[in-house]
């Protein structure tokens, strides 16, 4: 989870990721940030995030992203 937080803080250090549960729907991250985020997550965790995972609910909070990463790792 720390590694994921590091990735997020690098993209935008001004968001409190421990409390923010609306990263996408609340427009905290724009589409280019999300593009960078997805690329960096794939690199760091050695996973592929297919189109079925690209939904707001999977990126709205750190917890949701972490759960998604773990599920993809298990599936792979």
């Amino acid at each position, binding site marked *: 989870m720390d590694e994921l937080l590091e990735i997020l803080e690098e993209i935008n250090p001004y968001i409190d990721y421990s409390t923010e549960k609306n990263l996408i729907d609340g427009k905290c991250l724009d589409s280019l940030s999300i593009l960078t985020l997805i690329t960096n997550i794939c690199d760091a965790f050695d996973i592929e995030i297919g189109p079925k995972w690209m939904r*707001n609910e999977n990126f709205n909070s750190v917890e949701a992203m972490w759960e998604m990463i773990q599920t993809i790792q298990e599936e792979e």
Partner: protein
Amino acid sequence: MTELLRQIDETCRRCGGRTAIASREERVTFSELRHRARCLAAVIRQYGTGRPIGVFANRTVEPGIWFLAVLYSGNFYVPLDPQLPEEKLRAICADADFACVIGNDKNRERLAEMSFGGRFLTEAETSDMEWAEPNMEENAPAYMVYTSGSTGKPKGVLKSHAAILSFLQAFCHTFPFTQDEVIGNQTPFFFDASAKDYYLMLITGATLEVIPTEKFSMPTELMEYMNDRRITYACWVPTAISIVAQLNPFSLVKPAYLRRLFFVGEVMPMKHLNKWRSALPEIQYVNLYGQSELAGICCYYEVTGEFGSGDVLPMGRCLSNCRIDLVDQGNLVTEPGKTGEMYISSPALALEYYHDPEKTAASFLSADFGGGPRRYFRTGDLAQYDEAGNLVFVARSDYQIKHMGHRIELGEIEAVAGGLSQIDRCCCLYQAEKRKIVLFCQLCDQTEATEREIHGLLRDHLSAYMLPGKVVIVDRLPLNANGKIDRQALKARL
């Protein structure tokens, strides 16, 4: 009423019960649009006619009603971006000297915070006053957009009813539109490119769907939303199209109803467009070229045939209401492969830069390149004709530099670097004081390359004098509010 307003009024009556504008939460029919706009117009009319009216352009259906209300009142509107920094908003308010500003309660608070002294109006304040038909000339101003001026002072470009109508007639002649179209709007209403979507809806009776901004972050959801709303036509900025291509949702879901995808505002990277073309080969793809100083666009190029990753799409040919002349040192350029600055002549040209006769006279001028004098707009864009007679963008004239005795187009370096498989997007600047060409680049997904490696690859494609003295890899290139690469922000990093 002007002919434009008369035709819009006719559409509203003809398509009464059909949806005019829809967002995720709400929708208004053409009858409601006409009724609400006329009610508000009666109130605006109290503040006079021929005056600028500020309209906060939130991404809801309301600005679409408010814009029309301003037209019905005999005034012209100025879309205001609610996210503008306070200083910029202040500068625009000072320059425009609004007769009143229309918005919602949230916008009212925003203006109150910056001690805005003018009148503020919400739709709730409409009364039972009767709307009266305004007296207007065909070339009465319809709207004004503020663009960033090179000096930092916002620059208002004023466009007339006649200019908008001229564009619509030419565009619809080339690309027939019916009331069955559903337009998927991406560009915010304060961005001039959205005027095409808005007026196409008003003149044809098509539906304008305002796609929620956050959908562009998750292409899978975007595609589903487009299918849910049965979107048939979209005109987006290349950045939005590129992001969708990079996250590639097409193996899971495709936009089933989309028949036309147009793009405008910057150069479309072919490697991203090719992903769309291979996933959705039956769609019509069209590259558009326009300027803020003109209503709509002036050139179009339908993408057919093969284009490689590094190829640059032509701007194509003029719409029937425009004439473009390439001019080099006062002489007309007609030979393919020779570069000239683009001069546009058209009834769709803007009236003026607001309150700036000097700048207006410098950019809008009368010249005779054959067939008598015409009013031209000097674009500052350099172009050539290819062998097929298509116009091809070369560079901005102000991105042209003299370096080591050679005349160099920075755009050419960008085109070569952008064609490398490792580079997603790039921007080339010139550090005059150090006489150094600096290339900022953003790498493609899952690509690893060092600055030294990129430099080495460029060496294979560029003459020695054109090689950047410095390559800087950035996580992502800064973009301005319109989604274009923010050159000013990059200049600050030099």
